[in-house]
């Protein structure tokens, strides 16, 4: 028993040091995450850091009863493990939205529990304690409801269209003001629970009003934005008890969310600071050329037989996938096509736009899942260097991200958005069901280019046929 008590004493006296160790493991893990070769190791390093933090906390002297802790840890682990293995990777964005919401909820729940307990840690003044609780419960609740809304939109439970509430900016500012005032009153009178309730309700309303205005196409930005909110709420929780480990990790995650939001905002032509302030509505649609004017008489349709001839003559082939590919479950056939073309000595790569999936990096995971080696997955910048001397680009399930009007048409809502310059390839094969526009609603002149042919079909049968025809051509 002495031995156990001895360890417990060390754990308690040096708790902050152990948390620092955890943070170092996290940073080292993130560092390893910068290369696909070491990333898996990095994740394990990071998980190990987490284990240290949990064990050290379990040894804390203040704990009165372990019954609920053990039940909570066991049930949570089982649920986490089952969900991780059962998940269809196309639904990763929904899963992330839930993780996000849970993160916010944990932060808010612990914040409320701290408010009820009113046990101030040493070194912490009431002003500090209750301000931190106000901020923590506000961000936590905002993150929770915002993420739940994002989940409902991604899952199709509520409309993916942006719902614009009239005067939404004024309403949002009013709600925010009410929350700030309630926070100030709470600090002044910590025994009045109604101020806390006002913050919780206000944050919930604000979250709903902010996210309901966002369209389905903009969800990647929102997902990224809420990651940084989840990080900030962890940080705020750390400020309540001055847990340094939490403050540092919250900061790390907050940074990661902000970087991803900036990348997504740039890739989607949205103002980063506007998004941070909740202004996520896309730019107004202005007068643009109609589809008929652009397409009339210029669109050439092709057949799989002809398409494989084009591919046969090529040396270097780019495949540009969009989310449509994943919707059609056509990752397998597209991999088969890559394998066939490579067998024939051709160079094949995937040009992946940051918004090709429904969250940052989504398309890469979906292609890795079907065994496409990661060195074939090229980023937007890498692809645009390769595309001018690529012979054929196959565009499948993508539209706005290859729309050349983004480069020159100032009146277009996608003007200025970085695109994959497939129109610079020698020829382009577009696999698409019809000429219907993408999320932006803008017609795509690429389809009417001289060097573009359209293969009108669903992604899966079209690619399967291409593979079949190609094999026949080679035998």
């Amino acid at each position, binding site marked *: 028993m002495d031995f156990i008590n001895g360890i417990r004493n060390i754990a308690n006296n040096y708790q902050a040091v152990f948390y620092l160790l955890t943070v170092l493991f996290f940073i080292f893990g*993130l560092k390893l*995450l*910068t290369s*696909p070769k070491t*990333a*898996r190791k*990095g*994740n394990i390093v*990071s*998980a190990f850091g*987490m284990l240290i*933090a*949990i064990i050290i906390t379990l040894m*804390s002297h203040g704990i*009165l009863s*372990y019954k609920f802790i053990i039940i*909570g*840890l066991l049930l*949570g682990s089982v649920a*986490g*493990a089952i*969900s*991780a293995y059962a998940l269809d990777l196309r639904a990763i964005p929904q*899963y*992330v939205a839930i*993780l996000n919401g*849970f*993160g916010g909820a*944990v932060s808010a729940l612990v914040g409320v*529990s701290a408010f009820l*307990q009113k046990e101030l840690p040493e*070194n*912490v003044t009431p002003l500090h304690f209750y301000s931190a609780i106000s901020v923590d419960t506000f961000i936590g609740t905002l993150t929770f409801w915002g993420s739940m809304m994002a989940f409902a939109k991604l899952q199709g439970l509520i409309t993916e269209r942006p719902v614009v509430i009239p005067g939404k900016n004024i309403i949002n500012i009013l709600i925010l003001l009410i929350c700030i005032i309630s926070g100030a009153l709470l600090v002044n009178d910590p025994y009045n629970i109604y101020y806390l309730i006002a913050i919780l309700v206000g944050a919930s309303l604000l979250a709903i009003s902010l996210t309901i205005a966002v369209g389905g196409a903009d969800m990647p930005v929102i997902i*990224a934005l809420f*990651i940084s909110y989840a990080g900030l709420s*962890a940080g705020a929780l750390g400020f309540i008890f001055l847990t*340094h*480990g*939490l*403050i540092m*990790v*919250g*900061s*790390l995650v*907050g*940074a*990661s969310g*902000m970087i991803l939001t900036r990348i997504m905002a740039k890739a989607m032509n949205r103002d980063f600071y506007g998004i941070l302030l909740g202004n996520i509505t896309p730019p107004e649609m202005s007068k643009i050329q109609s589809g008929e004017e652009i397409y009339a008489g210029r669109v050439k349709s092709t057949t799989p037989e002809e398409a494989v001839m084009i591919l046969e003559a090529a040396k270097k082939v780019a495949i540009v996938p969009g989310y449509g590919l994943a919707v059609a479950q056509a990752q397998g056939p597209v991999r088969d096509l890559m394998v066939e073309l490579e067998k024939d000595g051709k160079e094949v790569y995937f040009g992946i736009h*940051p918004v090709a999936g429904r*969250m*940052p*990096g989504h398309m*890469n*995971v979906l292609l*890795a899942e079907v*065994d496409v*080696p*990661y*060195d074939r997955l090229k980023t*937007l910048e890498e692809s645009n260097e390769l595309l001018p001397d690529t012979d054929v680009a196959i565009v499948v399930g993508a539209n706005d991200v290859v729309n050349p009007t983004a480069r020159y048409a100032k009146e277009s809502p996608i003007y200025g958005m970085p695109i994959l310059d497939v129109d610079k390839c020698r020829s382009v094969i577009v696999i698409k069901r019809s000429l219907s526009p993408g999320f932006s609603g803008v017609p795509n002149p690429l389809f009417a280019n001289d060097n573009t042919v359209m293969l009108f079909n669903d992604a899966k049968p079209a690619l399967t046929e291409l593979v079949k025809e190609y094999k026949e051509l080679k035998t």
Partner: protein
Amino acid sequence: MDPLIAALILFVLALIIGFEVITKVPPILHTPLVVASHAMAAIMVVSAIEASGTGKTLLAQILGFSALLIGTVNVVGGYLIADRMLSMFRGDKKKK
């Protein structure tokens, strides 16, 4: 030093480290990064453990317990799904 100021300094320093390290994560790994970030943020379970273990009123205990439960889902689910995704990223020559 005022402990609050010390905490703010830590917050800002970690933010800088975060920006430095995370900007170097390549776009192909952004989804695993997101999931792993959530698992890390769920270090909040340490506060949840304390809240549910030291709770003096039933309500505080219930709140702490709920936080612990869903926080653990985030830790375990987050790390496992990140591992599942990262195990799929293969180099060229290693065929199964």
